[in-house]
C-alpha cells in the first residue's frame, strides 16, 4: 500500500478517535437554529466593558461581574456565548451582556434563547411543540406552560418525600433540574425594576413611589376634603399597591446579593436587596392580616353606602392603625440607594448609555473606597484579563492549527516542505504548551494557592505538564512521532476541561473548604498525584499511536518501535514513582486531617490501583510475560485505570473525596471511553497474535528447511 495513503489512514483514525472522545465528552452539542430576537439593541461596548469589572461577592470570594455572568450562562445556556439573530444578522452575546439583559432589561431577556434543554420530552409532556431532543428555549416560549410545570414539579417533590430521591426517573430528575434553573433565572431578574404589569397594577412609575408616605400621602388625604370614602380609597389602594409590589419582589434572589450596599464595610457584603427584604417580608405578613381584617369588615358592614360608611370608617381606621403599627420601617437612606441603583439601568428607564456608564463608574468607585474586600478579595483586573486571554481555549486553537500542519507534514513525507512543516508544528505545539502553562500560573496567582485544588484544575495541569514533557523529549530525539501524540493529547485534555467547565457551571476559582486549605499539601500531594496521572496518560497516548500506527503499517521501522517502547517504559516508571510519592503524601495529609493514614476511600483506592498496575507492568516485563506490544496494551489498560481513579470514583457517591456530582451522561461517557480503550487493546492483542503466528510459521519453515537440507516447499507469507 502507498505509504502516504497509510499515513492518511493513520491520521484519519487518530482524528476519528479524537472526534469520538469529544462527542462523548460534550454529550452531543446542541445545534439549534438561530433565534431572531425582535427589538434587541446591542449594549454599548463601553458599558459592557465597565460592567464586567464590577466587583461582586459570590461563592465566598470577590470576583468580577464577568466571571459571575459566565457561571450563570454555563448553567442555563450550556455554552460560553449566546448566538442570536438580530435583524437577520448573527450576533454573539457575551455572558456579561446576557446577564445585563436579565438584570436590566428582563422583558427583552425573556425573548433570548437562555435555557438549554437536553431532553425536550420534559417540555413535550407539558403540551409544548418541540423541534428536537436537545434545543434552547426562551423564557417566553416556556411561560405558557409554567403552571403545568409547577404541578409536575410539586408531584415529583411529593414522590421524593414518599419514596426518596432514588425513586425518580431520569426525566423527573431533569424536570427538577429544569425548574430549579427557572427559579434561578427568576431570582436574577432585578426586583427593583418594575415590570409593565406591576406598574399598571400599582400605578407606580418607579421604586421611589413605593416610599411615598408621610407628607405626600397626607397632602393627598387633605385633598379629599374629608370625604371618608375617598380617604379609605386612598389608604387602601396605597396598601394594596405596596402589597402587589412586595409580592412581585418577594423572591429577592441572587441579584439582591450582587448589587451591594457600598457602605456596608463588612466581610460579608450586604446588598440593598437583602436590607430591603429583611423588612419587606414581615411587612408582607402584615398586609395579609390587613387584607383579612378588611374582608371581615366588608362582610360585617355590607355594601358601603351613606348609612354604613361612618361605622365602617371607624372600624377601618382601627384596622389601618393596627396595620401601620405592625409595619416595620425601612432603613434610613434605602430610598436614596435605590434611586442610585435605578440609574444603573438608565437606558431601560429612558436614560442614555453615557448616563449608565457614569452610574456604573460611580457605583464601582464607591465599592473600591468603602467595601471591605478583606481576605476574600480578588484581583478584579487580573481576573478580567485572565478571562479575556482565555488561555486554554486559545491553546486548543493553536493545537488544532498544529494538527492541520501535521497532516500536511505527513502527506509531504520525504520532501523539503516536510522539514519546514515539522518546525511549524513543533513551534505551534510549544506555543500551545507555553500558553497553557501561562494560564495555569495566571490562575494560580489570582487564587493565591497552588495550581490544583479542584477536579477542573487537574485538566489544564495535565495538559500543560504533558505537553512540556513531550515537547522536550521530541527536542532531544526529533523523530516527529511525539508531535502527533502532543497534538492529540493536548486537544483531548483541553477539550475535556472546556466541556467540564461549561457542564459543571461553577466558578472553578472559588475558595476551597477548610480541610483543603493547605498550600503545602496542595503543592505536594495533589501535584504529585496529578503528575502521576499525566505520566500514565502520556504513556497511553504513545501506546495508542504505536498500536494504531503499527496496525496501519505506518510505524514499520524497528528503531521507531523500540524508541516508542522505551519512552512508554520510562513513562510507566515515571507514573509509578509519582503516583507512589503522591499516594504517600496523601496518606500523610489524611493522617493529619482525618487521623488515619489509609481509609480505603475510593480516591485512595484509585491511586493504589494505578501503583499496583504499574508494578504489574514492570514485573510482567521483567518476567518476560509481556514484550513490546504487550507493554503497549498494558499501558492502554493503565489509561482506563487512571480514568477510573481520576473520574469514575467521583461518581460513586461515597468517600471523603466524593465531589457530589452524579451525572448519568458523564457516566455514559466514561463507559464509552472504557469501550474505546478495550477496542484498542483488542487491536493490540490481535496484532500480537498475528505476529506470534507468523513467527511460529517462520520457525517451522526454518525447521523444515534444516530437515530437508534447505529445500523447503513450505510457503510462508512474508511479514
Amino acid at each position, binding site marked *: 500500500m502507498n505509504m502516504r495513503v497509510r499515513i492518511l489512514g493513520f491520521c484519519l483514525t487518530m482524528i476519528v478517535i479524537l472526534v469520538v472522545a469529544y462527542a462523548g465528552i460534550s454529550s452531543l452539542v446542541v445545534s439549534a437554529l438561530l433565534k431572531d430576537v425582535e427589538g434587541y439593541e446591542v449594549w454599548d461596548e463601553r458599558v459592557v466593558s465597565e460592567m464586567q469589572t464590577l466587583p461582586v461577592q459570590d461563592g465566598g470570594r470577590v470576583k468580577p461581574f464577568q466571571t459571575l455572568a459566565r457561571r450563570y450562562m454555563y448553567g442555563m445556556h450550556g455554552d460560553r456565548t449566546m448566538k442570536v439573530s438580530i435583524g437577520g444578522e448573527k450576533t454573539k452575546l457575551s455572558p456579561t451582556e446576557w446577564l445585563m439583559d436579565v438584570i436590566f432589561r428582563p422583558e427583552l431577556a425573556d425573548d433570548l434563547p437562555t435555557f438549554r434543554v437536553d431532553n425536550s420530552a420534559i417540555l413535550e409532556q407539558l403540551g409544548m411543540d418541540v423541534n428536537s431532543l436537545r434545543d434552547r428555549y426562551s423564557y417566553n416560549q416556556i411561560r405558557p406552560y409554567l403552571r403545568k410545570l409547577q404541578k409536575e414539579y410539586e408531584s415529583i417533590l411529593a414522590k421524593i418525600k414518599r419514596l426518596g430521591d432514588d425513586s425518580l426517573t431520569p426525566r423527573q430528575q431533569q424536570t427538577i433540574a429544569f425548574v430549579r434553573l427557572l427559579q434561578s433565572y427568576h431570582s436574577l431578574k432585578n426586583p427593583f425594576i418594575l415590570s409593565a404589569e406591576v406598574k399598571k397594577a400599582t400605578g407606580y412609575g418607579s421604586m421611589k413611589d413605593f416610599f411615598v408616605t408621610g407628607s405626600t400621602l397626607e397632602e393627598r388625604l387633605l385633598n379629599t376634603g374629608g370625604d371618608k370614602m375617598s380617604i379609605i380609597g386612598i389608604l387602601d389602594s396605597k396598601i394594596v399597591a405596596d402589597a402587589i409590589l412586595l409580592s412581585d419582589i418577594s423572591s429577592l434572589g441572587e441579584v439582591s446579593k450582587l448589587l451591594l450596599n457600598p457602605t456596608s464595610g463588612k466581610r460579608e457584603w450586604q446588598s440593598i436587596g437583602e436590607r430591603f427584604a429583611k423588612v419587606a417580608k414581615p411587612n408582607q405578613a402584615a398586609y395579609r392580616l390587613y387584607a383579612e381584617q378588611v374582608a371581615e369588615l366588608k362582610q360585617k358592614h355590607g355594601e358601603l353606602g351613606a348609612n354604613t360608611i361612618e361605622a365602617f370608617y371607624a372600624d377601618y381606621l382601627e384596622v389601618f392603625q393596627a396595620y401601620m403599627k405592625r409595619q416595620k420601617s425601612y432603613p434610613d437612606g434605602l430610598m436614596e440607594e435605590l434611586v442610585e441603583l435605578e440609574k444603573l439601568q438608565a437606558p431601560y428607564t429612558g436614560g442614555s448609555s453615557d448616563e449608565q456608564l457614569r452610574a456604573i463608574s460611580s457605583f464601582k468607585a464607591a465599592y473600591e473606597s468603602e467595601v471591605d474586600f478583606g481576605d476574600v478579595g480578588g484581583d478584579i483586573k487580573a481576573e478580567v484579563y485572565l478571562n479575556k486571554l482565555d488561555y486554554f481555549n486559545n491553546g486548543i486553537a493553536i493545537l488544532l492549527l498544529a494538527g492541520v500542519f501535521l497532516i500536511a507534514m505527513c502527506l509531504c513525507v520525504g520532501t523539503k516542505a516536510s522539514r519546514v512543516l515539522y518546525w511549524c508544528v513543533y513551534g505551534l505545539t510549544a506555543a500551545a504548551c507555553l500558553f497553557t502553562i501561562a494560564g495555569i500560573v495566571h490562575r494560580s496567582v489570582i487564587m493565591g494557592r497552588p495550581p490544583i485544588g479542584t477536579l477542573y484544575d487537574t485538566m489544564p495541569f495535565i495538559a500543560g505538564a504533558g505537553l512540556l514533557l513531550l515537547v522536550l523529549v521530541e527536542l532531544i530525539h526529533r523523530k516527529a512521532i511525539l508531535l502527533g501524540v502532543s497534538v492529540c493529547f493536548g486537544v483531548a485534555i483541553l477539550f475535556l476541561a472546556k466541556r467540564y467547565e461549561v457542564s459543571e457551571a461553577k466558578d472553578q476559582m*472559588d475558595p476551597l473548604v477548610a480541610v483543603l486549605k493547605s498550600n503545602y499539601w496542595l503543592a505536594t500531594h495533589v501535584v504529585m498525584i496529578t503528575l502521576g496521572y499525566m505520566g500514565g496518560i502520556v504513556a497511553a497516548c504513545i501506546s495508542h499511536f504505536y498500536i494504531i500506527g503499527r496496525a496501519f503499517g505506518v510505524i514499520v521501522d524497528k528503531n521507531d518501535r523500540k524508541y516508542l517502547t522505551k519512552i512508554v517504559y520510562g513513562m510507566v516508571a515515571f507514573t509509578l514513582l509519582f503516583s507512589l510519592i503522591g499516594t504517600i503524601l496523601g496518606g500523610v495529609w489524611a493522617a493529619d486531617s482525618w487521623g488515619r493514614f489509609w481509609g480505603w476511600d475510593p480516591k485512595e483506592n484509585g491511586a493504589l490501583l494505578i501503583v499496583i498496575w504499574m508494578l504489574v507492568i514492570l514485573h510482567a516485563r521483567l518476567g518476560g510475560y509481556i514484550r513490546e506490544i504487550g507493554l503497549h496494551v498494558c499501558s492502554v489498560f493503565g489509561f482506563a485505570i487512571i480514568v477510573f481513579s481520576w473520574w469514575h470514583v467521583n461518581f460513586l457517591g461515597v468517600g471523603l473525596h466524593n465531589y457530589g456530582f452524579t451525572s448519568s451522561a458523564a457516566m455514559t461517557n466514561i463507559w464509552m471511553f472504557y469501550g474505546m480503550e478495550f477496542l484498542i487493546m483488542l487491536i493490540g492483542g490481535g496484532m500480537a497474535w498475528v505476529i506470534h503466528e507468523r513467527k511460529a510459521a517462520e520457525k517451522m519453515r526454518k525447521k523444515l528447511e534444516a530437515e530437508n537440507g534447505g529445500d523447503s516447499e513450505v510457503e510462508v507469507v512474508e511479514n
Partner: protein
Amino acid sequence: MEVDIKMAKKKKHMGLRVLDFFSGYLLAVTCLVLLGLLVWFSTLEMQDVGLSKTLERYYSHKTIFVVPEINGGKSVYIPLPGAYWVCCVLFINMVLGGIIRIRKNVRNVGAVISHFAIAALLVVGQVDHHQSIRGKMESYQGEKYDYATKFEFTSIEVSEFDEEGKKKSPYVIKHDMIKDLNDKVRKFTFKDLPFDLEVRHFREHVVVRNGANYARGKDSGELVDGFFLQPAEFDVKMDYYNYGCYVMVRPNDGSPGRKILLSRSIGFPQTFSVGGKLYGIEMPNEIWNMPFSVDLINSVGEYYPGTKKASKFQSTIAWTGDEGEEEKIETIKMNQPMRYKGFTLYQASWNEPINGLEYSGFEIVTNPADRWPEYCLWVSAFGLFLHFALKLISYLDRETRPAVRRDLS
C-alpha cells in the same frame, strides 16, 4: 548441550522448584493482579454495601474467598482470595524473590530497598488493621473531658440513680462480651448489684418499631412495652451500625424479672427498680478512657462570606497528661492535630455556640503502627527513585556510547 540443559531442568529438586515458584515473577504478577481486582471490586461494592461492610468482606483475615457483588448486589461469580491472604503471599514472594534471591549488585540496590520497605509496610498494615481504634470526643466549653466514645463499638451500661436523680458510675458490659450473641442468651452478674442481666437477641442493625403501627416480621424481636426490634437494612451512606438487643433483669431476691428493649439509637437510659433502688440501663457507644484530659477554651468556626463553606475550624484547648504533666495550651486546626502517646486528636466538627457554650467535636484515633506506614513508603519511594535513576543513567550511557566510538574513529 541443549539436551544437557533440559536434563538439568528436569533434575531440579522439588524444593527448589517450590522456592522458584514462591520467589518468581509469575507469583508476583498474579498477586498484584489479584490485589488490583480486589481493590477495584471493593471500591465499586462500597457504594452498595458501605465502607465497613466492604472492608470486612474483602480485607478481613477471616475472608478466605470473596465473591464480588457489584451493581446493587449482583454477584460477579468470580471467587477471589481474600486481600489479607493475597498480601501474605505477596509478602513471602517479596521477601524471597525481591530481597533474598535477587541478584546482589549495584543496579538492584534500589529494588531491594523498595521490596524491603513494601514488605515492612505489609506487616505494619496488619498491625494497623488489627489494632487501630477510632472514637469521638464531643466537648463543650467549661467542661473537662477525659474520655471519648468508640465509633464502631457499643456497650450496655447499668447505673444506679442517687436520691437526687444523678447517675452513679456505670457498670459496663463491653462490645466484645456480646458481639457474638445473636440468638444465644448470656448471663452477666455484677458483684455489687442486686440483680443479674440476661442479654439476648443481639443484632447489628435494627430499628425500634411501635407495635401499634407496625406488624412484626419473622426476624423481628418480641414485643416489650409495646415496642419491638426489627432488623433494618444497613445505611450505606451513614455507615453506622444501630445495635440492639433485649435484656432480662433478674433480681437476686427472686422477685419477678423485667424485660427491657435496648438500642443504640434510643439515647437515654430506661429505668427499673430493684430492692427499692432506681437503676438505668442503656446502650451507648463504648466509653474509651484517654490518658489525658481536654478542656475546651474556645472554638472558632468561619465560613466564606455569603456561603456555608467552611473556611476555618479551630479549637484552643487546655490539655493535661495523666502522668502529672503541667497543663498546656494547644491549638488544634484542620490539618494540624494534636498527638500524644500514640493518640491523635483532630478537629472533626464545629457548631455555633449552644446556650452561649462553644462546641468542638474531636475525633480521636490510636494506632500502634502510628506513622510507620508513612516511613515505609518513603523508604520504598527512595528505593524506586534510586532504581529508576540508575536505569536512566545506564540508558543514557548506552545511548551516548556509539556516538563516542564514532567520534574516536
